[in-house]
């Protein structure tokens, strides 16, 4: 639910509120939420690691992985973290135009990554790896699918943020809203680095 907390209102327009830790409630909530997400991906990654070698039928992992392609899309996702940083810094300078610019670039890079994933899934499917083909297939699609959904949610959040900044619908601290989406975005990127390493690079 933190995504809703991010994308919208900051309540009253009395500016920043005093909190015990000094961190805003929204930001603290996002950190806490991401802590929880670690365990979610931990569970999914463990499942994949257990099952990656179990192919009763259909292709083996190393038969279908296209490392160069996935490396490029991973690089694109990594670059989106950089543009996210630029967006946050623009937001902190209260530079709405550049904030929106970099948020949009981030969203486009994210969308490119998701597009790459969709392409990869269809390619794998054509090569005979369906969701129910083998344990490897089930756990691969589940893990990367969950990550893809996270990226998609992030793109929606970026889009909403851009729209709301443009229409001045964010009543509270704009920079904080951008920063929170940024936190989420970086988290999703870091998770991808872990997945890329464990799933694609380490041979089964």
């Amino acid at each position: 639910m933190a995504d809703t907390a991010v994308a919208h209102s900051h309540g009253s327009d009395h500016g920043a509120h005093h909190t015990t830790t000094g961190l805003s409630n929204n930001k603290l909530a996002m950190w806490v939420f991401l802590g929880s997400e670690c365990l979610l991906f931990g569970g999914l990654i463990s499942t994949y690691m257990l099952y990656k070698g179990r192919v009763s039928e259909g292709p083996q992992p190393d038969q279908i992985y296209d490392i160069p392609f996935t490396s490029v899309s991973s690089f694109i996702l990594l670059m989106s973290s950089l543009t996210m940083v630029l967006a946050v810094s623009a937001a902190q300078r209260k530079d709405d135009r550049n904030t929106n610019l970099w948020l949009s670039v981030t969203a486009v890079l994210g969308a490119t990554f998701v597009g790459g994933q969709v392409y990869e899934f269809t390619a794998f499917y054509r090569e005979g790896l369906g969701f129910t083909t083998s344990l490897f297939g089930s756990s691969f699609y589940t893990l990367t699918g969950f990550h893809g959904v996270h990226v998609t949610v992030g793109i929606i959040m970026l889009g909403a943020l851009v729209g709301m900044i443009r229409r001045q619908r964010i009543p509270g601290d704009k920079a904080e809203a951008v920063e929170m989406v940024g936190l989420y975005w970086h988290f999703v990127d870091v998770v991808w680095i872990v997945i890329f390493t464990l799933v694609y690079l380490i041979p089964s």
Partner: protein
Amino acid sequence: MAIIERPSTEVAPSGASPAVVVPSEALGVFKRPAASTSWRDWLVTVDHKKLGIMYGVAAFFFFIVGGVEALLIRLQLIGPDGKVLSADQYNQMFTMHATTMVFLFVMPMAAAFANYFVPLQIGARDVAFPRINAFGFWCFLFGGIFLNTSWFLGGAADGGWFMYAPNSSTLFSPSHGIDFWGLGLQITGIASLTGAINLIVTILNMRAPGMKLMRMPIFTWMVLVTQFLLLFAIPVITVALFLLMFQRSFDATFFDVASGADPLLWQHLFWIFGHPEVYILILPSFGIVSEVIPVFSKKPLFGYPIVAMSGAAIGFVGWGVWAHHMFASGLGPVSVTVFSLATMAIAVPTGVKIVNWVMTMWGGKLVFTVPMLFAIGLVVQFTIGGLSGVTHAVAPSDTQQTDTYYIVAHFHYVLFGGAIFGLFSGFYYWWPKMFRKQLNENLGRWNFWLMVIGMNMTFGPMHILGLQGQPRRMQVWTEARAGEGFFDLGFWNRISSIGSFILSIGVLMFIINVVYTHKSKKVAIAPLDPWDARTLEWMTDNPPKEHNFDSVPTVNHLDEFFHRKYAEDSTTHELKQVASAEQVLSELNAHPDEHIHMPSRSYWPILLALALPVIGYGLIYNMMITAVGVALVLFTMFGWAMEPSTSPDDDFDPPASEGGHTKELAPLG
């Protein structure tokens, strides 16, 4: 869309004189609901106290449901070859009994207390995200109802609450019961996860000035630990439930042995969640009795930092013991050793707590009110459960005891004798705070003693049953394996079943007590501070105003309220009462804060939560319904996002405004 209509604009039963609220401009998609005194206000409220009460009422309802299921189980087992329930019904009954008691009673009841009292105990005006709080409650309620509708739609889940694979696959459980179970738990899981984030942020971020971590009431401490456990445990069960759903609904093969799956994967995922879950159930009750015992001993909690830290230690070590549920699962001796020793280690911080409660009473001035009785009941019964726990931390010994009634005895001593007795202690202790009237002490004593007798009669004999070799989850037991003489299983099964009925009469006494207290004209309004309490929640009206504190107190001590009432006489060094509770409160209220921003009511939490079971039914019956549910989710999330959490007209000045500075609730979510 009739309910989106704006209700009347008059409000505020909260203070001495009602504040008038003027209707506001629509800021969201729809006009937001205004406060009213009608029942509809409960549907749209975001007040942590009202939500706490709703959590409590709903959880108690499920307690009765789970209790009836338990009685049917005991009725079936009262004699050999029971005929009350068929094997299929029996399997559904014990699955749903456990699921209901764990997920729909003890957890939400602890959430009820946490919601109501954590903000009060730390001097906050609400939780950090009031609308998410409301959303969490509705998720729990709708998830619980959704889960229980399976009874009427082809049968409930029948795989046991642990739902081991591969017995949970459609091949072995073709009814929709397990689908309802998995999806229902996902929905209530959302409630737990949002609740955890909300309470963690609230406790870390919204404490009154001077309320350092080590000045927090111990109940708040235990809630904090519990919420961290939930935060990390819920995603693990979420993964497991997703895998189960993909397997059952979309033909994935996660637990299909023929495709090479390992059934132990489910066990590990389930117990990595499941064991912290045990502490999630018990720690809030530990917190409650750690409040109650000091109050009725007239002493501070003995070794407060150690109790707080041992709670945290239990929470931490609790992550390293999950496989003690799997000593017979075929783990290697090295893993068994590690988990066996870790499990023994966790007995230390738990034992520390018992020692500290006893030492708190030692040298005190003990008053045996009903809350105190229940608290002492917890100490004694939990000790029994803890000691039997040590006997099966010893892995070889556990291979004889696991999956027998000995384990059933053990965890009912821990969870009924411990967790539920703690919750009842909380009912009696905090009742006057929540409802202005004190529950009747005489009826309360009946309630307590019947529950003690019933509980020990029901679960005590199960130690014998288990050690004599009666396994769990058996639809029938047979005389051929019952033995004779003193340890005759027939005799002890009978005693246990009779005990369960005494236990239910005990619980019934509580309901009678509640009805009597609130219907009888003879029961007077309770005094402001009936127990001579020690913590901040008692420094408010009974029940507290909507904004809790007219002015947020500054905290200088652990047990702040007590220290405002009592001071040491400088010559005799004896404690003397220097102020009454009324005096403390009126002193605090003398300089109220201005411009208190209370979060405004909202339709979106209940609407969003309502969309989730729609998705659930859709996944089971028809993907078109799922699409409707998803559309509803998107629509309500959009509406939610467009609605500011506070409408400007909710700016509220307490009546006795005499200047002073502004303190605000950071209203978000």
